[in-house]
């Protein structure tokens, strides 16, 4: 037998399947798609290298740029609604669920998380029915408060469709920040809170003075997860408003713009290179968000801890 330590083949065997599948079907396509965004269709189904011309076209050509900026603007509004409604609501529900005085906690948790496990396709159709003026459920609901005259075809108006769909998305996904906040709140040692209570602080002061600062890392994680999820969203808009993201592109976000471009639809031929370019822009936006979180937010937290 050889005296040298044998090559650790078992380590290779353990790592190979995951690394190969992940590299072949995730990392390679992501990089290849970025590479492909620097090509344009040439004659005879070939592709020629064009450098960053596609990006220039996408951001300044009058046939493309208005769609891109519209989708980016809508996507930021979509994200803003989630940050302003979903995450504070998730925090409120988590605070109530972690309170000592709350009963039936497991039951509430199960019910409040239910929409999150359902498919976006089903959620989209359910809300399309509920908001449909034909069924009139939204009018009945407003009628409870004597506000029936405010009822609108919420998904049919350019002014309300995007905010309405953002709120439907909030309704579905609020369970995620709720559970992340809940896990963080439950992890806070009781002694800290008891000490503050003894000092005479009320529940409100205890929450904002002690519990909230302690869960700041989770606030950051929820923020970045919301960002990545929102800039990758597609299913809800596609299900309720089709690929054209109507009315008049008022609900078009980057995911639907990307799909329409690379996959094509009735009146628009598929354009894979421009599709890859839109994916490249989405990649840059998501990367910027993640890096901002990693450097700015985490570094600042570390400094506070020191």
């Amino acid at each position, binding site marked *: 037998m050889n005296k040298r330590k044998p090559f650790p083949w078992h380590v290779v065997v353990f790592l190979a399947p995951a690394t190969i599948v992940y590299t072949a079907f995730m990392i390679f396509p992501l990089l290849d798609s970025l590479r492909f965004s620097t090509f344009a269709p040439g004659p005879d189904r070939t592709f020629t290298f064009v450098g960053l011309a596609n990006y220039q076209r996408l951001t300044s050509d009058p046939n493309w740029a208005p769609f891109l900026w519209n989708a980016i603007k809508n996507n930021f509004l979509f994200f803003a609604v989630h940050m302003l409604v979903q995450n504070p609501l998730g925090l409120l*529900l988590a605070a109530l669920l972690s309170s000592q005085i709350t009963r039936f906690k497991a039951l509430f948790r199960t019910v409040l998380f*239910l929409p999150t496990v359902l498919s976006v396709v*089903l959620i989209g159709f359910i809300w399309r*029915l509920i908001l449909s003026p034909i069924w009139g459920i939204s009018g009945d609901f407003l009628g409870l408060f004597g506000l029936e005259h405010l009822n609108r075809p919420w998904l049919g108006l350019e002014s309300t469709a995007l905010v309405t769909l953002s709120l439907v998305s909030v309704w579905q996904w609020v369970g995620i920040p709720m559970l992340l906040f809940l896990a963080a709140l439950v992890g806070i040692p009781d002694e800290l809170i008891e000490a503050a209570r003894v000092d005479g602080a009320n529940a409100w002061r205890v929450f904002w003075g002690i519990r909230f600062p302690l869960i700041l890392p989770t606030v950051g994680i929820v923020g970045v997860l919301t960002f990545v999820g929102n800039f990758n969203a597609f299913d809800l808009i596609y299900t309720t408003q089709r690929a054209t993201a109507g009315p008049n592109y008022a609900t078009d976000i980057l995911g639907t713009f990307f799909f329409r471009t690379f996959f094509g639809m009735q009146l628009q031929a598929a354009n894979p290179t421009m599709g890859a370019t839109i994916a490249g822009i989405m990649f840059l936006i998501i990367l910027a968000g993640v890096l901002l979180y990693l450097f700015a937010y985490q570094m600042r937290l570390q400094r506070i801890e020191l």
Partner: protein
Amino acid sequence: MTARARLPGKGWGHWAQVVATHAVLLAYAAVALFPVVLVVINSFKSRRAIFGSPYDLPNAETFSLVGYQTVFSGARFDLYFLNSLIVTGVSLAAVLLFASMAAHALAEYRFRGNALLGLYLAVGIMIPIRLGTVSILRMMVALGLTDTLWSLILVYTAQGLPLAVFILTAFMRQVPGDLKDAARIDGASEYRIYRLILPLVRPALGTVAVFTMIPIWNDLWFPLVLASGERTKTVILGAQIFLGQYVNDWNAVLASLTLAMVPIIVLYVIFSRQLIRGLTQGAVK
């Protein structure tokens, strides 16, 4: 009652707080449940009753299964269901096996590039695989895999791996080293040791299974792009297309929504404790 026993003499302020807390939770629970309940009860009613009395439970007069009849004659949901089961099941098994093997290697062995490889495998947690769709589609066309369940299985396995490796590595690092050393002294091979460790991280495997399964089962994007043929439709794509075609047949729409939702809701109610415990544990890590 225990609340009062624990905090004696709190008086009205305390009770007002108890009532307000539960009122908010109940109100939001109603908001979360109302749309789902409304769809389910109306799926069992005649068209006239759906519009005439949408908030009533079906009774002898309004009860109707016409929507379900349309669904079963209009679409092959049994086939779509089987496709979803195969895709989700095979991808899930592959993710659990490959990720646990890789996590074991990352947690157990010291080799050059260990940390770097861990980081490389974690990149996919933050960068969505969808952004590579253009190339994935071209690859699948080149491999002749479009309109096969394999195309979905390969993509979903790649999609599930990063988070699975990340969580399982963290758990496997906590398995005491003495145990493995004892097994080595007994002459166990490295593969045997991996199989010895697996049962010890079973709760983490459960967490990962849930995290992996739900997005795969619910996905619309990749079935739409890679496998939209009639033979390979998943439940979600099938429902999406069926709902689009029958959009004005309210009975059929409500029935198909109910059919697509109820299996998930039943599973969720059975496993919700494990699921939520898993999610909260994962978050603490």
